[in-house]
């Protein structure tokens, strides 16, 4: 039974957590999905998944919707399209192709965005995670934000209304356009994290944020704690820092200051790397539970740093970290064994 469960986890992690629209629409008829959910709940009870399960990768499916708006100039058009494609390609590595929607160039019209969000609304369930990334130029006239698309531009209010139809309780909306800060407050909801490239609608210069968000969400660069999982908080910090560094390198006055609104950004995964792609069987799950406990212990030691002598601090660190390292070997061996089918 355990064996079957672990195999189902393998399937679940690899192809169902980023479920295709077609698959999702058939979900009620898919016998595997209920079982997967059962296993998920069992895993969720384990301390080892304190981090992993709290993240969007822990349960439910993941959907990604990317819009690359009007560039206005050829270099912007190309850049926006490249960024959208890079994000989509990475998302598709762990999902069915149609769990990831990209609209760019002439296709990215107001109606197309509305239709795609309607489709998404029909597909997504409450436990699923939805990531929406808007790339391009935005504008703000003091009252309304507008996303610059071919044809009529959707306003911030219209977009908010479409987003609000999504039943997902785990939403991340990254508006990387100029003037995007205008919507940071308006789009914020209880289960939604909103990231904007600018602090307000007044920052109207073409932004650099999308470029660095793309790097954060598609590489290991933003994975500060090296757990092979990039969270929204890590990606945001990374992109924000890179934007800041880029302006400094150009000795230019920063024309954008990114914002993050909403809670749980540190548990919303935007990219799984390496081992985070791999499946977790019950044995692994048990080990991960132990790892979670050790991480809590590590945090305690770090918090007591100022109260300890240097020698005592490093001694205590070493004790915990050696245990963690040894445990990690076992986790890796366990994962290898699952992947190898053994």
């Amino acid at each position: 039974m355990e064996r079957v469960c672990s195999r189902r986890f393998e399937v679940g992690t690899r192809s169902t957590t980023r479920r295709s629209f077609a698959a999702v629409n058939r979900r009620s008829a898919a016998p595997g999905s209920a079982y997967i959910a059962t296993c998920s709940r069992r895993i969720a009870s384990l301390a080892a998944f304190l981090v992993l399960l709290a993240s969007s990768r822990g349960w439910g499916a993941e959907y990604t919707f990317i819009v690359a708006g009007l560039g206005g100039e050829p270099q912007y058009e190309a850049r926006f399209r490249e960024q959208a494609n890079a994000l989509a390609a990475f998302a598709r590595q762990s999902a069915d192709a149609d769990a990831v929607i990209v609209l760019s160039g002439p296709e990215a019209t107001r109606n197309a965005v509305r239709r795609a969000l309607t489709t998404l609304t029909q597909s997504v369930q409450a436990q699923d995670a939805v990531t929406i990334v808007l790339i391009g130029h935005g504008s703000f006239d003091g009252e309304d934000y507008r996303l610059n698309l071919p044809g009529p531009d959707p306003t911030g209010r219209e977009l908010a209304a479409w987003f609000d139809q999504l039943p997902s309780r785990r939403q991340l909306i990254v508006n990387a356009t100029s003037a995007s800060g205008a919507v940071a407050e308006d789009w914020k909801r209880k289960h939604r994290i909103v990231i904007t490239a600018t602090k307000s609608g007044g920052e109207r210069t073409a932004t650099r944020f999308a470029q660095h968000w793309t790097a954060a969400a598609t590489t290991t660069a933003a994975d500060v704690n090296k757990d092979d999982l990039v969270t929204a908080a890590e990606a945001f910090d990374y992109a924000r820092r890179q934007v800041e560094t880029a302006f400094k390198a150009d000795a230019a006055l920063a024309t954008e200051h990114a914002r993050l609104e909403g809670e749980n950004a540190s548990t919303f995964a935007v990219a799984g790397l390496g081992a985070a792609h791999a499946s977790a069987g019950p044995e692994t799950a048990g080990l991960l539970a132990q790892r979670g406990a050790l991480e809590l212990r590590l945090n305690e030691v770090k918090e007591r740093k100022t109260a300890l002598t240097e020698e005592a601090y490093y001694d205590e660190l070493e004790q915990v970290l050696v245990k963690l390292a040894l445990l990690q070997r076992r986790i890796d061996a366990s994962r290898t064994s699952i992947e190898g089918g053994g």
Partner: protein
Amino acid sequence: MRSMTPSGASGATLLSTAIAACVLATLAVFGAAHAGAIDYDPRRSASLRVCDDHQQHGRIEQARKCYSLLLTDSNLITQAEARWALGDLRAANELFRRAVQDNDRAVQARVRWGWLFVQTHQYADAAELFRQALRIFPKDVHAKLGLAQTFAERFEGQAKPLLEEVLRENDELPAAHVLAARMALEEGQLAAAERALDRAAQLTAQQKQPPLEIYALRAAVELSRERSPHAWIQRALDYNPRYGAVFATLAHFEVMRRRYREATVLLRRAVEVQPDLWSAHAELGANLLRLGDVAEARSHLATAYSGDPYSPTTVNSLRLLDRIDEFETTTAHVEIGAHVYQVKTRLHRDEAAVLRPYALDLAQRGIDAFSKRYGFTLREPMSLELYPDHDDFAVRVAALPGIGLLGVTFGYVIAMDSPSGRAVGDFHWGGTLWHEMAHVFTLEATEHRVPRWLSEGISVFEEWRTGPTPGVAVPPEAIMALKENRLLPVAALDSGFIRPSYPNQVQVSYVQAGLLCLFIEERFGFEHLAALLRQFTRNVSTEQAVANVFRMSSEEFDRQFDAYARARYQTLLAHMDEWDEQQERAHEAAEKEQWADAVEAARRAAALYPEHIGSGSPHLLLAHALDKLGRRREALAALERYYTAGGWDPAALRDLAHWLEEAGRPRESIAVLAALNYADPLNPAQHEELGERLLSEAQNAAALREFQALLALSAQDPAAAYFGAARAHRALGDAAASRRNVLDALAAAPHFKPAQEFLLQMIEERQNNE
């Protein structure tokens, strides 16, 4: 013709530095320049002259009473002058305004109002008023003189021709001769200064005007001749015991000669004799800052501000001092042979940990090289100050923000932009520091007697010969000046720095000075350059020094240099038009992505002008085009030529490093990556890559430095830096430091697998050894 801009090359760096030093000289001195100026205008009312006489003899109370009686005078100009003399500048300003409003043809009111603006450092407003007066009455020599004074205050080239025009129109203006003497002194033309002073003295005697400014300038002439100025100081003080301006004037010229200690002594005397000489307090504060005495500088600047709140230099300096706590000051001991030198660094706390090792490394190399080459041993600690905010640096050196400086040397103190103060690729901070360190040696070895051209020339020459980006880099402007016979005789080259007469002349003068040193080295041998510098350990003119060292007149020296320069650039001079055309073609082809055409044109342009390594360098175009055509090997060769010629564009050097690595030349690749630290030191990825590469080559100490720099740059993502440092420490045999660092790495990133494995291996080895 594609002109070179100050980016992308060491040549550009030195050019920008050149501008810097000129502006410094201009701005650093103006505070004292106008101190105690006297109104010689014969239109000045007799009633004011009575009061002036008290004032100019130091009878302050009588002067005050006298001027007070004129506050109700029927003439608005007289009222304004009285308010001005009593220190109520706002009221004086308002009265002049009314005088001008009442009479839109008023010339004298505008001229005197202009002078009020000169005193309050508002030169643009002053110039506008003088121009207005000239529009009303084009022949008013006093307005012209005011305008010339405004230009002179800002060291603008128009000052001289305008003053000559004034003197042609009216030879009987003491103020004009005083200004002529001052400008001649500033250019080191002592005989001309004396002639002007003789005439001014004659006129003041005839016109019964006070001789105070003449005494002060005569004292300055004596000082310039290294003779005692005491007799003239005494005559000035006998005339007016409160005439602090005599000391301030002397200090002004000492600052121009970069003799800051001597200037400080004089300025202390100035404020002692005349405690309300605010400009002297301001200059003393600025000078003390140059010498690194922050506390006393603050005190004098505050005093200056209390009396003259209009001076932007004082206000800016005080603002900078309010933020001085943001800087870390440390002292390092640098061992070179049997000597131990102290090097002080003042770096912003946000970047001190990254920059300090590289700054100290350059300091050590610089001290070693220059001590040997010029036979001079530093006698005091050398101080390096790097300012991340360019305006802070500009305020630090000249007290005005927004000016195009890169680096300045005040004796043993070097102040410069930090690499974070400018866009990446805008300037090579290592080259700038090298240039400034050479100044420390040339200035101190000669007790600041070295003429500007030689000090700058040696700095430029050392950038080319021994600096972090060696290679003779001569920009197109200098070649054009050579072609059009616009280079100056060596004996007059200082004027090209102080009062340029055509655009870019300052930059051209820097390059000419560098080429003169190169000429000396190549024609006579380096030892002759060192010998020429040693000539200035005493007070000699350039002509005398040239004659002593080279046994020829400076005219003959100029002829030989001209022939040398023309021979050196023979090909380019003969094909300037073709070079220009090929450059244009190469750029156009590259823009159209017609790479084969770009290769052909860029190759020819590079062959004609291989020293062009600035923005738009044909080497870079060639490398890029060849790479686009898939000819990486040839592209690598083109980039190597660029690098060898002194090119340092960070993006190009990163390509070069990677291509060298690909070509199986790891050591050369590492050397290029290491060189990047002196162009773009705040790039974390670069430190990480270099650290890893150095570790792989077992250059462990150097690797450790890179990981420590990475750590300083990666506060929010420190795991990789700690892990690199752990491996470097281990390779260096420091097990305890290695343990701490790997534990720190894992504390930051508990799942960092390579670090976990390293920790387990470390534990295993420890257990085996127990």
